[in-house]
Each structure stands twice: as C-alpha cells, then as structure tokens.
C-alpha cells in the first residue's frame, strides 16, 4: 500500500503541506477560499526537531496502521478501513468523542473546530494523489509503497 513518507533531510518546515492539506479538504481546491471561508483542520502535522545547531522538520500524518487502534477505540463506527487499506473517518457518524485521539500512537488525529468530528489524513483518496505530496516544494514528502520508502530512508 502506498503511504506518505517524510524525509527529514529535505523538509524545510515551510508548512505548505498543511496549507494544501486544508485546501484538499475544500471542494473547490482553491487555497484562498479554503482558508478564508471555512476553518478547516489540516490532517498533516509539521514538527520541529531541535538539533545542537539547527532545527529540522518532518511532516507526519496518519500511518494507516495495519491494525489501527483508532478503529478499535471508535465508539460510533465512524472510523473504518476501506478496501484499499486506507483508514477513514465518516464525519456523519463521528460524534467527536476523541477516543481515537486517545489511542493514536502518532498523535495524528485532530479534533475539528466544530467539536463534533475529527480530521485525519485519508491520502486524498477521493480525488487522486495526496495534495500535500503534489505541492511539497522540496520533495520532502513522497507517496511511496513501503519498499520504495525503505530504499530511500
């Protein structure tokens, strides 16, 4: 299964992935509209790593675990794994109990501002390749299968 892998040595910490993640969640895929009209939660998190002389960064999002804790913890059945192995959250069913946040070992599920649902990366499954990957200016995140990713790490 292809997932998004981050390459710390390439990550600039520009956080464009977050911008494009939010945009991906907006129907028109217009960056300005996505940010001005609606408060959308990004499902990608850019973290800093403080080195002795420098700061480096990496982007993190749902790892689509083989045996996801979030699905086990979900009380409403909103969280599920689709036939492609992508872990998705059905916001219609989600009640915002945050049990998934409680158990996610990567800490990559976020509460939406409405308090009634959560946001997580679904690899932009509904419209193609992940938007964040497509728009990373430095190829610091790539959409790869595990073998490819291991070869590059």
């Amino acid at each position, binding site marked *: 299964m292809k997932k998004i892998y981050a390459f710390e040595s390439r990550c600039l910490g520009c956080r464009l992935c977050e911008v494009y993640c939010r945009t991906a969640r907006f129907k028109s895929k217009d960056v300005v509209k996505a940010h001005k009209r609606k408060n959308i939660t990004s499902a990608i998190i850019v973290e800093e790593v403080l080195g002795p002389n420098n700061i480096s960064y990496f982007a993190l999002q749902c790892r689509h675990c083989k045996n996801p804790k979030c699905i086990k913890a979900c009380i409403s059945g909103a969280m599920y794994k689709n036939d492609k192995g992508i872990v998705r959250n059905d916001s219609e069913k989600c009640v915002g109990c945050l049990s998934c946040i409680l158990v996610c070992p990567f800490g990559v599920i976020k509460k939406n501002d409405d308090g009634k649902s959560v946001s997580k990366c679904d690899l932009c499954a509904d419209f193609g390749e992940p938007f964040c990957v497509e728009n990373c200016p430095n*190829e610091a995140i790539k959409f790869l299968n595990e073998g490819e990713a291991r070869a590059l790490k």
Partner: protein
Amino acid sequence: MSLDFNTPDFEVIRNGNRCIQCKVCVHQCANAVHFYDEEYDVVCVDDSKCVNCHRCVTLCPTKALVIRKYPLEFRENFNWHGKAIKEIYKQSQTGGVLLSSMGNPEPFPIYWDKMLLNASQVTNPSIDPLREPMETKVVIGRKPERLKFDANGKLLTKMPLNIELKVPVMFSAMSYGSISRNAHESLARAAEELGIFYNTGEGGLSKDFYKYGKNTIVQVASGRFGVHKEYLNAGAAIEIKIGQGAKPGIGGHLPGKKVGEDVSATRMIPVGSDAISPAPHHDIYSIEDLRQLIFSLKEATGYKKPVFVKIAAVHNSAAIASGVVRAGADAIVVDGFRGGTGAAPTRVRNNVGIPIELALAAIDQRLREEGIRNYCSLIVAGSIRNSSDVVKAIALGADAVYIGSAAVIALGCHMCHSCSTGKCNWGIATQYPELVKRLNPDIMYKRLVNLISAWNNEIQELLGGMGINAIESLRGNRLMLRGVDLNEKELEVLGIKYAGE
C-alpha cells in the same frame, strides 16, 4: 544612525485579499523580511531587508505577494542617477569596497544578440534531427599536428588523453564554499547523467564527490585550496585558473561565515577563516612559469589528465591565448566580462575585461593565423544564456562552452545578486544547513539535466536547419553568422559579414 538609513531597493506588496496568514513567507525568508507580529496576529513586512530573491513569491500558495522596485525616486539625472548616489552613501558610511555578485549587469553591448544564424533553403536540405542522426559530441584536449599511419594503414600516433562531452556545454567552476554542497551534488549528478563535466572551482573537492570523478574537472587556483595529489587525480581533467571574467586581475574571496566544518576540511583551512586567494599565482609571474605548472600537474597525474588554463577575457587575450597553447595547455578557457561570481568588487566586475564574443573571435582567428588552433581546445564562458548563444559561440570558433549563471538559475537562482551575504534563500550560495536543505539535489539535478537536454535539442534543431549533422562542422563556421547593428570594426573583429551580404 538615522543618517545611515538606506532607502529600500524593493517594496514587498502583500495582497490582503489573498493572504491566508499561513506564514510560509515568514518561514522561508532568511533575511527576515516577513515576520509574524504576535500582538496583532498578522504577518508583516520589512522592505528594507528584501533582496528580491522571489523565494516568498514563489512559495506563497495564494500568490499574494509581489515585489517591485521601491518607488522612491531621486531627481532625474542621467549622470547622477540613483544607483550612483546610493553607492556613495554606502561607501561614505562604511569606508568599504563595494561588493557585488553574479555578472556585470551594465548595459554594454551583447554581441550574441547582434549575430544571426543561417538556415538551409532549397539549395541544400535542412536535416531533421528527429529523423536523422545529429551529433553534438565534442572531444576536448590536445590534438597532434597530424595522424600517422604505417604502411599497412595502422595508426601510429598515440593520442594525448582527451575528454568527451556528449553536449558541448559544461558547468563552470563554482567552488564548494561559494555554493552549497547540495548545489555541488546537483551539478555533479547532472554532469554524470548528461555525459558532460562540472568544475569543482577553487575550493577543493569533498571526498564524497570523488565518485563523480569521471565527470569532474578539478580546479587549481592561486589559493591552492584543497589541492593535493589525490584531488588532482580525482577528476577527469585539471583546470588552472589564472583569471575569472567577473574579476580579472584579482583573486577570490570566500567570507569566513561560509567556511563551516565541511568546507574547512575540503579547503584545508580553519573553520570560520576567510579564504582569500591571491591575485596572481605566486609561482606564475610569466608564461614560462605557466608551462612549469602545467607540466608539474601533468607529472603529478601521470600525463593522464588534460590540463586546461582559464583566463579572463582581457584586451590582449589573443596573444595570451597563443602563449597558453604554446605553454602546453590542452584547452584554453576564456571567461568573458559578464561571467558570474559569488563576490567581486563592484568596480572590477562592472569595468574590467572585454566581451567574450570579441575575445573568442580574436583568439580563434589568432590561433588559426599561427596555425595552432587545432592543437588545443577552446572553451568559452561568461554569460552563455541559451542554446543559440552556444551555437553562435561554436560558430565563432569555440569547441565548447561553460555555463555558470545559467546553471545556478536552473538550480533556482533568481539573480538577486546577493550571493556574498551567504544567506541564499534558494540554498545555492549558502552554507547554512537549513538553507542548503532547500536545494534538493534529487529535484535540482533533474532540472539541470532538463536544461542541457533542452539546449541539446535546440542545438540539434539549429544545426539541422543549417544542414549540419555534426557540431564540429559548425566550429569556426562563421559563414553561418551574420551581424546586425554592428559597425565595420565589430564585424571585422568577429570575422563575420553583415546580414544581407
């Protein structure tokens, strides 16, 4: 203090309707032009620090930024124009020599743009490079006077070692130190993939890059930074740098802030120390000294590496070039006055040297008159901007060209002329790890490959149009050129006819 205020060169305009306050510009500007004001929760701008590198403009996801010339005007005066006045302010404040980067920006004639190429019509066919072989390979190095065969037709002449270029374009000397490790890696990998060469510049060569040796030209300059036997043998050819087009007559200067641990190890100088190469080589005070250095380098490398000699295009280049050929150089590199640099005194950059087109024409003609043109290759540099510049250079008589500025532009450079600050926002002319990182060699080497491949395609098309299917049949083929907007003397020096003649 207030008297020292220098009016900004640029103005950054943020379109509030488009800005989404994502702070990408804040994260990306190493000059801190963009900053986040916590009190007002808003992204702000300090124009005075902007160098117009376009990093923020390029990365802004909503295209909310525009940079333009700062609109503040001085009273109109063609003599005392704004730039002249500002330079005086700056020098009177600091007492320093003005420094600039990249090539001469002054409005001198650009002869490439005054020469036009020929094409076949009716009397001979143009050749379609998509359907017919079209050769752009060139062989650089010393050539014997003639080939000798024995009675059975067996070749007796042993050829001196030459290097082969699949495309007659190489990446010119840019030292590790002046440019980043990732920039170097991109150049090296691109050269390898393209079957051409990149040049280490005068900063030595990191051992990590020895693996690209067969596509590397190692440079020996007056500072001798990082020069040792292993280094000399690491590349495919050696280049002695006598001069550089951007700053003929003076040596290089790498500011200490660009000398980190890796650069220090590679250059064999202490961390943080300025790397200042002397104006002349102190073992070359005349042409016979050059011959000695050429042959010492050949001795050190077992006569297995061609030795190039790079000179700046100056008034007497033709005679100097003749001397260089006779001194035993396998190739002469001539760098014109528009050649780029990481840092040069502004006055030198803008006022010393001559246009490469004229120098090239004069040198090629002089070497032919002396009957020695075929002994040695002639490589030109100094603002080759596109494939037609390449084609024109070859038609004037060059074997190949070096590109520096064009290569760094492919790597992302937006020609902000601020290399010497060491804070290149594109990760090219910097050593700050967080900035170096911005240049991803995986991406950028491909861009270089794209650039040269594109040029190669264009060169092939232009050649095909002229009915030529091997680039050596263009070399010195000045009948393929016609001049426009040139006077008699210029035509004479260039050795070309006027359009319509």
